[in-house]
């Protein structure tokens, strides 16, 4: 029988530990495919965060370093400065990159650090049991915003890609979603560009991916996708927020 689909070489054989219906897995696959298509698996070092993706270092087939909560981009900076010819990327949840790691998120972009960061925005702290994240929507109930996120108490959600795009050192910034086949294809394109921008030495690249957390949202996987579409996509600015001239031409 002809095999029409197989696991990408960018991922190891290990089964994912993510909850059923969680879109962390789709995002992993997209990155794995990009690494394989660019033929850079052997020349890439990834940095894993704390949070649900903390074990991603087992899933990708490239070398990987596990960082402290929020520090993935500082760790990635150290790796890249030591190995300027390799590709270095961090894979982080919204809690990791937009709460505890905010300073590093701003400053890798400000320095134009030539690394790629993937932000997985599921609007909650997943691993610790669904607490409020800086990305939690107004009115959204979480275990630490049981009456719904209150603007007066916690402020409105942070749209991190939008902030990062204002910094000159940020070369490429995109916000994508993996809720539909069409959007998954667009997400892969953005992730590929983010790595190509690094290959060309153009500066910092960030791709934020809207993702679901069926477990903590208390919704079925399908309803979660629907919720993401109806509630997150209108709030977060989507698409390529910043593209360097070199890439547009290509």
């Amino acid at each position: 029988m002809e095999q029409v689909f197989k696991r990408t070489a960018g991922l190891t054989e290990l089964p994912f530990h993510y909850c059923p219906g969680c879109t962390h897995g789709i995002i992993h696959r997209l990155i794995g495919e990009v690494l394989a298509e660019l033929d850079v698996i052997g020349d890439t070092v990834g940095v894993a965060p704390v949070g649900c993706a903390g074990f991603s270092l087992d899933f990708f087939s490239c070398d990987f370093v596990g960082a402290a909560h929020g520090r993935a981009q500082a760790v990635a900076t150290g790796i890249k400065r030591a190995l300027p010819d390799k590709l270095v990327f961090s894979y982080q949840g919204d809690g990791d990159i937009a709460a505890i790691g905010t300073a590093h998120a701003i400053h890798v972009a400000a320095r134009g650090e030539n690394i790629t960061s993937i932000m997985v925005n599921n609007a909650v702290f997943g691993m610790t049991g669904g607490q409020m994240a800086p990305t939690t929507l107004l009115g959204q109930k979480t275990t630490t915003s049981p009456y719904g996120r209150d603007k007066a108490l916690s402020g409105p959600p942070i749209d991190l890609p939008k902030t990062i795009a204002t910094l000159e050192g940020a070369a490429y910034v995109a916000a994508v979603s993996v809720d539909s086949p069409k959007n998954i294809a667009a997400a892969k394109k953005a992730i590929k560009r983010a790595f190509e921008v690094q290959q060309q030495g153009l500066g910092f690249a960030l791709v934020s991916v809207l993702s679901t957390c069926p477990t903590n949202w208390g919704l079925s996987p399908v309803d979660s996708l629907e919720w993401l579409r109806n509630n997150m996509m209108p709030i977060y600015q989507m698409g390529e927020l910043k593209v360097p001239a070199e890439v547009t031409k290509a």
Partner: protein
Amino acid sequence: MNKVLIKGNEAIAQAAIEAGCKLFFGYPITPSTEVVEYLSKHLPKAGGTVVQGEDEVASINMCYGAAATGARVMTASSSPGFSLKQEGMSYLAAAELPVVVVNVNRAGPGLGGLGPAQSDYFQCTKGGGHGDYRLIVLAPSKGQELYDFTLEAFDLADKYRNPVLILADGFLGQMMEPIELKERKVVELPVKDWATTGCKGREKRKIASYALTNEVGEEHCLAWQKKFDSMREVEQRWEEFETADAEYLLVGYGTCGRIAKSVVLEARRQGIKLGLIRPITLWPFPEKGLAAFKNQVKGIITVELNAGQMIEDVKLAVECKMPVHLCSRQGGMLPSDNEILNFAAKTFGWSLKEGV
């Protein structure tokens, strides 16, 4: 012989270059700032890179990343900055990454003062970060040692795959002294066959600090403790001064160890059999050096720039077989040799001759 007159902090920086340090990540803080300034000027010329991080947390985590690639890396700070590095220190120890960290101790707690102090002793020797880890802590007492110990720190870090700490104080970091610039002795070190450099042509590697299965977690902890035990056995270092017939001992490290030498000389001139043990490694603490005097001396005075921290290790080392007293100054002040001698005389009931 290549002798230069430089600041202590610059001696550390120059030694790092000689040791083959390729990356330095730092954030300025008095009295350690000359380390990042000197390296910003000189490390690029030696083929290295200096990045000024957004803060100390970033700097130590940049070290973590660079060390993971097998490169020689260093960071330097002073007390409040060193506090911020504690998260990273714990992760470095757990991930078994060789990094040299310098803490030029200023006075604390809080923002404190800029003068010399030894108030970070507990934090540096007992693991200021979370978890059960140990660091080799080297305590230089003069410019030449700042240089020599830094050179060696890189080898010790690589030998044990563990962060190594140079603990100096504001006095040592800021003082200019003539220093002989030596070349690094080439020692045989284990190959870094664990570094994450891109897996082309080999199996993938990963470096992480966690094990969420308790059984595996315990395995890790036991392996670390075995390594720490071997450090404890092999790396205890100290200097003895006038100890052969000593009836009393001073114990002091760094700047205090240096001042204590004059005290010993003056006491000897007065016919008092005083000796000095100057710990060179603060962890492992030179228990062996002190244990030898358990049945020889009548009393010990620790000289410290804090409210009494090392004194606890001294008491343990001599198993409380004799009284151990504390002579201390704090907040950036140094005791004079007379002050220490008078304290010892009062404590032990010596009668001193005039003129002291």
